[in-house]
């Protein structure tokens, strides 16, 4: 078989080895430094094992690099890999929904970056990854992908202008606010205590620390000074941490795509075609609500590759009205109605009447195993009631034109907006109890990774009927 295609940049090996080092480094410290004088069996076996793992890791990384090739063809991309079992993986370019690029510190040293192409498919192969490529190669791949999409859109929309408009750029003030809301400055305390207990184990710090504590208690002002220094330090650390993740945040768009770029040390860029956005979520945690901030997220297929990265989120710490304005300019189709009417009070009674499964299970479990802890069931009961009341308080629903908007949640509330064409299917159901209250449950599904199902209980039966008929309209437009 003739091998065609391109290999990754050789720095792939360096990047992979670095992550290997991160994985095994801790074991080396323990086995060869901390337990240097030990001759216990597990230490000896461990040393051989870790050396063997390292060697295998190095060899397989090199082989992986050697056998991994990719090729750009007219309208597909082909990836071949596998050391013993050969795989060939082909994707059609017009199936690519969005792309994501990530550069860690190590990428930056080599002047490199990584690229992930997301498709609607699920499974291991779904995201197409180029872990280490040069910036020029990335530009070449993107150029190969993007003109296709633009042509496809051009037929139906206004003439294409590839001029990006920048809509948002984060400032130092934004960073400060963000670092406060994410509460990352509090991370110093567990960190300090973890550090302390670790050190205490090794150096028998306890006794010295006790006398030091005595000293501090007598000279209490010293304690305050130390505490202030620690707090200041943690604010600085929090600020730096937030800056690394969210610094230089920039949101821009052109006619076809939305571009999100962020990060100082760890640079990430994300781009999605506007017509692939399935829904928009506005999320407000308790703290963000106090500060009037909101996070706007775009629901799209294939953003689940790196959970917790929030790449598909527009800047998560934006003042609410600014976030709405931004959304208006970028995605004029998604209009968020701020004022939403609460459901009638009878819905609250219905919610409170429904069986308390968790409480019942807790009571049974405690009766069987720990009778003296039975009071805990009461706490659980109280919590579930509080949860239901909050849930009632924040739940609402409206639909106008081709837009549906629902809001729910207690401490963290979430507003979800989507369009009729984006809804994959709907279900309206009503139980016996719900019929007694004249309400129903509506639920609808949106394409995402995984499927996003929105369920709303307590919609009045008239409204549920209207919702069903609205979706059942014969005409497509």
């Amino acid at each position, binding site marked *: 078989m003739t091998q065609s295609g391109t290999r990754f940049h050789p720095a792939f090996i360096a990047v992979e080895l670095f992550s290997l080092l991160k994985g095994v480094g801790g074991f080396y410290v323990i086995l060869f430094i901390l337990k240097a004088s030990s001759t216990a069996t597990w230490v000896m076996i461990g040393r051989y094992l870790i050396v063997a793992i390292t060697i295998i890791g190095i060899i397989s990384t090199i082989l992986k690099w050697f056998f991994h090739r990719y090729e750009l063809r007219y309208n597909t991309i082909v990836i071949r890999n596998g050391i013993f079992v050969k795989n060939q993986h082909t994707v059609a370019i017009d199936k690519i929904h969005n792309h994501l690029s990530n550069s860690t510190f190590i990428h930056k040293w080599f002047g490199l970056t990584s690229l992930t192409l997301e498709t*609607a498919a699920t499974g291991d192969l779904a995201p197409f990854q180029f872990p280490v490529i040069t910036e020029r190669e990335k530009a070449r791949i993107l150029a190969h992908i993007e003109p296709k999409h633009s042509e*496809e*859109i051009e*037929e*139906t*929309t206004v003439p294409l202008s590839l001029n990006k408009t920048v809509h948002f750029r984060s400032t130092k003030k934004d960073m400060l606010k963000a670092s406060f809301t994410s509460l990352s400055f509090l991370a110093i305390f567990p960190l300090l205590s973890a550090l302390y207990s670790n050190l205490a184990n090794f150096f028998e710090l306890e006794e010295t620390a006790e006398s030091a504590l005595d000293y501090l208690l007598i000279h209490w002002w010293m304690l305050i000074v130390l505490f202030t220094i620690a707090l200041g330090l943690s604010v600085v650390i929090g600020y730096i941490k937030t800056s690394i993740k969210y610094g230089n945040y920039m949101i821009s768009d052109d006619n076809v795509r939305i571009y999100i770029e962020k990060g100082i040390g760890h640079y990430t860029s994300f781009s999605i075609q506007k*017509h692939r956005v399935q829904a928009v979520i506005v999320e407000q945690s308790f703290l963000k609500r106090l500060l009037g901030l909101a996070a706007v997220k775009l629901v799209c297929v294939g953003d689940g590759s790196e959970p917790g990265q929030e790449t598909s989120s527009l800047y998560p710490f934006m003042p609410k009205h600014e976030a709405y304005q931004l959304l208006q300019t970028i995605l004029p*189709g998604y209009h968020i109605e701020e004022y939403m009417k609460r459901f009638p009070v009878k819905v609250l009674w219905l919610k409170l009447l429904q069986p308390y499964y968790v409480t019942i299970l807790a009571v049974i479990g405690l009766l*069987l*195993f720990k009778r003296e802890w039975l009071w805990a069931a009461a706490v659980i009961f109280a919590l579930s009631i509080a949860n239901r009341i909050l849930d009632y308080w924040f739940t609402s629903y409206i639909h106008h034109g081709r837009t549906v908007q629902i809001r729910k949640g207690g401490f963290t509330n979430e507003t979800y907006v989507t*369009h009729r*064409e*984006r809804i*994959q*299917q*709907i*279900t*309206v*159901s*009503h*139980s*016996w109890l719900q*019929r007694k209250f004249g309400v*129903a449950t509506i639920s609808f*599904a949106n*394409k995402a990774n995984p*499927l996003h199902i929105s369920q709303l209980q307590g919609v009045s*039966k*008239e409204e*549920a*009927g209207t919702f*069903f*008929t609205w*979706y*059942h309209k*014969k005409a*497509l*437009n």
Partner: protein
Amino acid sequence: MYIEIEEPNQRISSDAVKVWRISHSLTFLVELLVIAILFFCTNIFGWYNWIETILSILFGLAFLSAIYNITIQPVFLQRTWRYQVDEQFVQLKHGKWTEEHTLIPMEKVEYVKTEQGPVMRRYGLYTIEVGTTTSSHKIPAIPEDIAKQLKSQIATYAKIQDTITEEGEKGA
């Protein structure tokens, strides 16, 4: 009618009741067997007492649900099941205590298939499964000739809609 909507009107075969009774009885027998074996093991190997308590509870639950599932539930389900397939939608409705209406646009339908188990073969019935990118839905107990016709009908409609969808997506 509780909610003012256009309800589907096609019914499923009345043999569904028999099919469900037989298959639920078989399920119950398997459950009994498993519980009996576990009881036996508890006595032989002297497991904890609370395992026996839980097994008794499980047995009680299985027994009660079997009575409901074999006597009443099949009748209710067969009586309430309705479906309708037209050029635009697959519409499903079922349930007595909790009534559920589902609406799937043809353009989102990805595949349709028929399925038949041994019990259903005796009565010449098929289950039709309609799958979208995100989920799948089953219409139970359809007589053979209708099932085949329905399958090809859904396949045709879904395909026709395909080209219209793309235009719709772009315009959105």
